[in-house]
């Protein structure tokens, strides 16, 4: 090789090698990165935009969007607005898109579906000229609240879904007020989700800590063997484990039969242990426990036994040794396991849906409901965005403190 070995030449070679190394490593990562962005991250981001961008109504009723764009709440429409709205209704009725616009309106204005569809049909082919024409078809057109609600729905970019997700709404004067009492469910659900996730995390810690401790203080051959008892549930299908709990806990189930058979309770006093919050919490704790044991175990394995011996030799009681020396050293495992269990519990859907009954439903269940049954996608997206925001925030903490590589699953 007739290359110069002057410092600048070496530096240039080095820079070139580094550039090539970067490109090579990027080329290796790129296929998966593109795959995840296209099939996973971008679809989620696109779905979340529905939480503030709802063009369905405006697309179907463009003249209405235009006419109501600077609406003053409390006002009644001019003849020009009436004509725009009724022309849109007629056009949408002919294009058979009225149903979608009416459903959208119905979410913000109870009864709005029939108001729009019936008015559209009653108008026939002739747009209304004055407000009185519309009121003659349905008296609700004479109320300022109807128009205020329609002006809100006609907006493409809107914050109403986030308000609804937080049990708030805009009143007829567009002031933010609490949702009507019978509709206040989301804050309760968020709080219940936090409470269940917190309780499950605590139970996993309380149950997992002694297991990890014993496994970490046994000879390695023995602990590998016992670890199978932790790992087998982990590898067993979520639905199998949920089935188990139904079999065990239902009112004609194994545990109730046992209690009745041994005379602890009478046949008509069978315990309601499932299809409520208790069922959700029991099954979730069982399913998430291995996620707590594994990080605890790997941290405890690395704590030298000489630390505890040193503390004991200097006169500390076993309790003090544990509390002042051993337990603080296990905190990284407690943090990693606890955060992971909490994050996973926040998004639980299958288990609450199967064993949760009414009182055991979590926020994911209501998101699925609005997605699949009520079809209020804007609200589902807003609830999802709040949940995902919380989860990603905690994930960021996890990544910063423990590093994502530490996210071990067996």
């Amino acid at each position, binding site marked *: 090789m007739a290359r110069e070995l002057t410092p600048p030449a070496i530096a240039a070679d080095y820079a070139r090698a580094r550039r090539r190394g970067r490109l090579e490593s990027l080329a*290796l990562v790129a296929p998966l990165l593109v795959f995840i962005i296209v099939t996973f991250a971008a679809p989620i981001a696109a779905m979340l935009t529905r939480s503030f961008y709802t063009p369905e109504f405006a697309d179907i009723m463009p003249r209405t969007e235009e006419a109501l764009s600077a609406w003053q709440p409390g006002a009644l429409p001019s003849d020009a607005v009436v004509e725009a709205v009724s022309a849109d209704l007629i056009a949408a009725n002919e294009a058979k898109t009225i149903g979608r616009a009416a459903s959208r309106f119905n979410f913000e204005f109870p009864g709005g579906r029939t108001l729009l569809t019936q008015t559209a049909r009653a108008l026939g082919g002739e747009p209304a000229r004055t407000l009185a024409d519309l009121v003659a078809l349905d008296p609700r057109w004479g109320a300022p609240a109807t128009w205020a609600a329609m002006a809100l729905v006609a907006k493409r970019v809107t914050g109403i879904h986030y308000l609804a997700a937080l049990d708030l709404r805009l009143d007829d004067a567009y002031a933010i007020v609490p949702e009507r009492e019978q509709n206040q469910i989301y804050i309760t659900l968020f709080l219940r989700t936090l409470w269940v996730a917190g309780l499950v995390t605590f139970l996993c810690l309380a149950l997992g800590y*002694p297991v990890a401790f014993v496994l970490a203080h046994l000879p390695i051959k023995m602990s590998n063997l016992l670890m199978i008892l932790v790992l087998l549930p982990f590898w067993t299908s979520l639905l199998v484990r949920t089935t188990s709990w139904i*079999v065990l806990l239902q009112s004609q189930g194994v545990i109730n039969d046992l209690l009745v058979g041994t005379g602890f309770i009478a046949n008509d006093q069978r315990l309601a242990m499932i299809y409520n919050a208790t069922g959700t919490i029991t099954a979730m704790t069982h399913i998430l426990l291995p996620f707590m044991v594994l990080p605890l175990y790997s941290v405890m394995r690395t704590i030298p036994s000489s630390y505890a011996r040193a503390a004991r030799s200097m006169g500390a009681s076993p309790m003090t040794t544990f509390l002042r020396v051993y337990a603080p050293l296990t905190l990284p495992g407690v943090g990693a396991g606890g955060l992971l269990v909490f994050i996973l519990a926040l998004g639980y859907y299958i288990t609450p849906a199967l064993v949760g009954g009414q009182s055991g439903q979590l926020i994911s269940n209501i998101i699925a409901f609005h997605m699949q049954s009520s079809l209020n996608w804007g609200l589902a997206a807003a609830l999802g965005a709040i949940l*995902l925001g919380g989860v990603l925030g905690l994930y960021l903490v996890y990544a910063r403190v423990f590093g994502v590589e530490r996210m071990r699953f067996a």
Partner: protein
Amino acid sequence: MTPNGGPIWVRIIAGAVLAFLMLPILVIVPLSFNAEPYFTFTPAMLSLDPDGYSLRWYRDIFQNPQWLQAIQNSFIIGISATVIATGLGTLAALGLARSELPARGLIMGLLISPLIVPLVIAATGMFFFYSNLGLTGTTLGLVLAHAALGTPFVVVTVLATLSGFDRSLPRAAASLGADPLTVFTRVTLPVIFPGVASGALFAFITSFDEVVMVLFIGGPEQRTIPRQMWAGLREQISPTILAVATLLIVLSVILLVSIEALRRRSAKLAAAKLNGG
């Protein structure tokens, strides 16, 4: 102090917790042989009367076209998703293991995110995306969705084996004239194989066990085993589910044993390297 597992009362608590982990799963196994259509132990079963036991629920699975279709779907979707996830995940891990990679933390965070994003949110996003592409109710759509969920496991396990990988080995092979493909298949892959295989098993079980995506983006043609169980638990509950669950438990034992064997092999390789072997 000999390693004896700590004070006796801690060992008793730990034993009870391990029983809490295992018993609910084990209780299903005998109940799946129930001769009666009940979800609880009959007097005949408790007195170990052979007439109390039967294989009728197992026969049920294999005579029911819905279950047979579900088993077939689960394997087709699971294996396809595993192939995609393992290929993409292994390549990405090879790149992530190199120190030159720019924005490593960000990329890693994004690649691992399918593990922690609530499934309902992921499934909702994919539902809209796939319906625009006409992929809802298709096997391809589910394969892609499950592959995305499985890749983080492959990345993490392969990356773990690569952390013990001697980077001078591929360089030595290259300097002896091997082209990059030969270096990978003859040098790198044999060393990281345990990680790749465990990642693949994780990816497979993730797909095999997944039901939320199936509920949101799968159609009637894509009913998998978990989807069938979901329907059974919500609608017409039949002890056939217990027989299926028992078979799934057997499958998880097989997978667990395979993973443990791979882990031992990987540990052996690492030990050999430490000894200069």
